């Protein structure tokens, strides 16, 4: 079947746009139930120790307070750790809310107050008296570095660092140019604008409909069924809209557990919404201390590369991400040693946050490369070209495609890189120092198994559906575009359904794999629909398509046409009449090719160029220009794709300059747990951002040639900015965020 490309590859406005701009899009906390009760979480005041007593009497005495759940009266749930492990749980014992009196992280939920209204529940929560036996918390990563360990159990889906190649220490000792420095990534919290929330609708007889803030409804359903011993038929999860997540919604969070516990116990509907400060008691990007050592020839060619990272995790789970692996594949280098260790802290378990590991690791590598450029006097862009990796030397595989050279060239041209003067502090305008920096970005291009359904109706409307989520990523729209082109339907007649466990199962929306995975599934399902339609069309008496096979027809404007002679055609409606049906439907499953993944390495790449302007006396850094040139295979929707990159760049600017959850190690808690003190970029912080998608044809990475865009926009952005800060000021700052105290120090 030849598909037309009327929609795929063009700029299409979001199909979910009207619902979002009119306020009719419903998020997890916005579903109604006649018997709704409200739960408010009481958070632990200590970080480590145990609850010695909990007094709920005053709360229970408030008229309208229905029940207070604590570890003393919690409903019975599954016994084994195994039952609490969700689809993306790292190795360890998942946190169980209200399980016992032990406290193992700051802000741990210790009670849920359920009342007839939100106000009453909140008031009740303020009346809960908890006494604790407090122990000294251990939250300082630097102090735990010596005790760091290589995680004994690997997290599924996360590659451990590859084995060393060559002799990195030896080559480093022999190299004429060497550097070795330490780089730090601060803790960052995802802070999606929508707080985590769950509404459990009690449907009677133990049946639940759950609206959860989750990046994949099947994960919620699986978790609830396994923890509460329920049947999938009795638990339907519907979450059509997610108010941002960036990874915080990959794993079910504790408000889900609490809301379901309360609903089952009270046999009524319950909503639990976390407050913004409680959003700082969930997962986060872990603090990571890294050492990078580079050894090179005088002409900048890398001879040795060492990259080691120590990251914090909780006492109960070994969260893992790929921090150092990027250093093994981004550049050609014969001698490489990579290491990754964890240190246990009295914190909640970290969580994947937009480009987990890559933001951290690529920052260190790309700042180190800039330092090498300075040490050798070679232009930073030229240095990267000299060390360009033609294959993945870490895994010893060819790339499915790699148009990074085009990213460098087109990004540099657009940015005007050639006009950069090499010397730090050499560019200025008035009071402001100007700095230009660049960095490379990389992220793995994954594809996961996904199912999807397509249903074409005789009235010409098409529905495509699967269970994954659209977090703002554009999934509603791209799946509709794929369906529209496959079956010749105008996009206005396509409806996409997502976020419902009643739909064919698709993976969690994460890792930038949704477009490739669910997009391929929609295309397969549409193909199966077209096969059925063609079979019907051939059945028509004296059908003009009697001898046509699928490879020779196209579906355009509600007709099946011979590709070679479009005047030979059958209307889809006539085909359905011939088949005696009013709809044609198919569900198909797309799977990644094992052979391809054994033979090839698949990555998206980017080149990021940043301009900063710094008033040195004030220490304020403004990122006045960013150009992000991205190679990500086929781009499905130019409009939403661009937005994905813009969003990544903005979060990268936040990581570079603003975002830091600060632990007070005396009490083991994050001090700045609100938007007033945890700074994310605001509109005034963001100036010009240009996005370029370079041509990259890839027939191996996924059946539809797509690599995914959710993460690549953030990777490398902080390094480009840090390098620009150095170019502007001559100061090399190796810890992000680069706050003004570091500039004026």
């Amino acid at each position, binding site marked *: 079947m030849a598909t037309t490309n009327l929609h795929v590859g063009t700029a299409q406005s979001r199909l979910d746009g009207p619902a979002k701009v009119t306020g009719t899009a*419903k998020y997890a906390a916005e579903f*109604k139930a006649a018997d709704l009760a409200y739960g408010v979480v009481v958070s632990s005041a200590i970080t480590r120790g145990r609850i010695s007593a909990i007094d709920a009497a005053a709360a229970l005495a408030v008229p309208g307070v229905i029940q207070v759940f604590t570890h003393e009266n919690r409903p019975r749930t599954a016994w084994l750790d195994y039952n609490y492990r969700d689809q993306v749980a790292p190795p360890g014992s998942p946190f169980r809310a209200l399980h016992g009196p032990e406290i193992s992280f700051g802000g741990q939920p210790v009670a849920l107050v359920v009342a*007839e209204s939100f106000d009453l529940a909140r008031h009740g929560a303020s009346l809960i008296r908890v006494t604790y036996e407090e122990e000294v918390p251990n939250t300082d990563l630097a102090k735990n570095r010596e005790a760091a360990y290589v995680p004994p159990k690997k997290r599924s889906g996360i590659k451990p660092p590859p084995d060393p190649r060559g002799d990195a220490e030896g080559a480093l000792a022999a190299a004429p140019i060497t550097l070795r420095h330490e780089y730090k990534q601060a803790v960052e919290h995802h802070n999606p*604008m929508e707080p985590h929330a769950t509404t459990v609708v009690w449907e009677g007889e133990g049946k639940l409909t759950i609206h959860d803030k989750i990046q994949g409804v099947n994960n919620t359903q699986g978790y609830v069924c396994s923890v509460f011993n329920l049947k999938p038929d009795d638990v339907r999860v519907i979450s059509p809209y997610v*108010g941002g997540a960036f990874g915080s919604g990959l794993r079910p969070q504790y408000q889900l557990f609490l809301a379901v516990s309360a609903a089952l116990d009270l046999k009524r509907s319950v909503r639990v919404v976390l407050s913004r400060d409680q959003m700082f008691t969930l997962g986060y990007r872990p603090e990571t201390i890294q050492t990078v050592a580079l050894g090179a020839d005088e002409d900048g060619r890398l001879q040795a590369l060492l990259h080691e990272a120590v990251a914090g995790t909780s006492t109960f789970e070994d969260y893992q991400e790929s921090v150092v692996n990027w250093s093994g594949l981004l550049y050609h280098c014969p001698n490489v040693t990579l290491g990754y260790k964890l240190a246990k802290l009295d914190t909640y378990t970290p969580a994947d946050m937009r480009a987990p590991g890559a933001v951290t690791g690529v920052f260190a590598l790309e700042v180190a490369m800039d330092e090498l450029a300075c040490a050798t006097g070679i232009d930073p862009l030229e240095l990267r070209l000299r060390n360009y990796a033609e294959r993945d030397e870490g895994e010893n595989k060819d790339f499915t495609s790699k148009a990074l050279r085009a990213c460098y060239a087109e990004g540099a041209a657009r940015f005007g890189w050639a006009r950069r003067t090499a010397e730090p502090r050499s560019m200025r305008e008035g009071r402001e120092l100007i700095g230009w920096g660049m960095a490379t970005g990389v992220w793995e291009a994954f594809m996961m198994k996904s199912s999807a359904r397509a249903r074409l109706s005789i009235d010409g409307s098409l529905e495509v559906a699967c269970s994954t989520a659209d977090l703002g990523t554009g999934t509603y729209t791209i799946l509709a575009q794929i369906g529209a082109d496959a079956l010749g339907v105008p996009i206005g007649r396509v409806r996409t359904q997502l976020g419902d466990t009643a739909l064919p199962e698709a993976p969690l929306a994460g890792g930038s794999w949704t477009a490739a995975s669910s997009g391929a599934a929609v295309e397969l399902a549409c193909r199966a629909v077209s096969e059925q339609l063609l079979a019907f069309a051939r059945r028509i008496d004296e059908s003009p398509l009697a001898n046509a096979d699928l490879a020779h027809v196209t579906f355009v404007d509600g007709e099946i046409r011979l590709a070679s002679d479009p005047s030979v055609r059958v209307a889809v409606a006539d085909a359905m009449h011939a088949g005696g049906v009013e709809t044609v439907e198919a569900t198909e499953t797309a799977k990644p090719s094992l052979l391809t993944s054994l033979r090839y390495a698949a990555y998206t790449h980017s080149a990021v160029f940043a301009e900063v302007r710094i008033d040195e006396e004030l220490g304020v850094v403004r990122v006045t220009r960013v150009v992000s040139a991205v190679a990500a295979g086929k781009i499905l929707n130019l409009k939403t794709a661009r*937005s994905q990159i813009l969003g990544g760049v903005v979060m990268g600017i936040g990581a570079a300059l603003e975002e830091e959850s600060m632990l007070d190690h005396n009490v083991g808690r994050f001090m700045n747990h609100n938007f007033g003190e945890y700074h994310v970029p605001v*509109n005034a912080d963001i100036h010009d951002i240009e996005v370029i998608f370079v041509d990259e044809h890839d027939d191996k990475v996924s059946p539809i040639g797509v690599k995914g865009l959710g993460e690549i926009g953030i990777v490398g952005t902080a390094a480009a900015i840090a390098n620009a800060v150095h170019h502007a000021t001559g100061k090399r700052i190796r810890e992000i965020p680069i706050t003004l105290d570091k500039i004026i120090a």
Partner: protein
Amino acid sequence: MLSESGTRDAGDRIAITLTINGQRRQLQVAPWTSLLDLLREDLDLTGTKKGCDHGQCGACTVIVDGRRVNACLALAVMKDGASVTTIEGLSTGALHPVQAAFVEHDAFQCGYCTPGQIMSAVALIEEGRARTREEIREYMSGNLCRCGAYTNIVDAVESVLNGSSARREAAE
């Protein structure tokens, strides 16, 4: 909380009148209920979002008597007699030009900050203060967008501003 769902004495409640999206409503509200919770929980106007409940994010922005206000920082009883416009009341049928511009310029991703951004933008354009992109950025900075749609938000607001100034010039 409204009287009909009541568990507390009616005496705890205060009678107020609000005009919400053009509709006059007589309400009994508890003195501590925020305008935001009144809208979201009692009146089912969930288009107005809660992002922080502390006046730090702008997701709850509504227009009260022509001014943009953080509904989480306003107690409902303090707004007795006021006229409130929420995202649900911005347009009937066709999209308001700001809503249409947000769709056209892809000025949102997850959509959670969007009603607040749009209400802010509508009031900002009414105020007539913002002329340049720089000013739009500055005056829209009370509305956080974690998805990072800022440049597109500025494009959307600017396009409506230019459109309305073009209309004004044409009228002159």
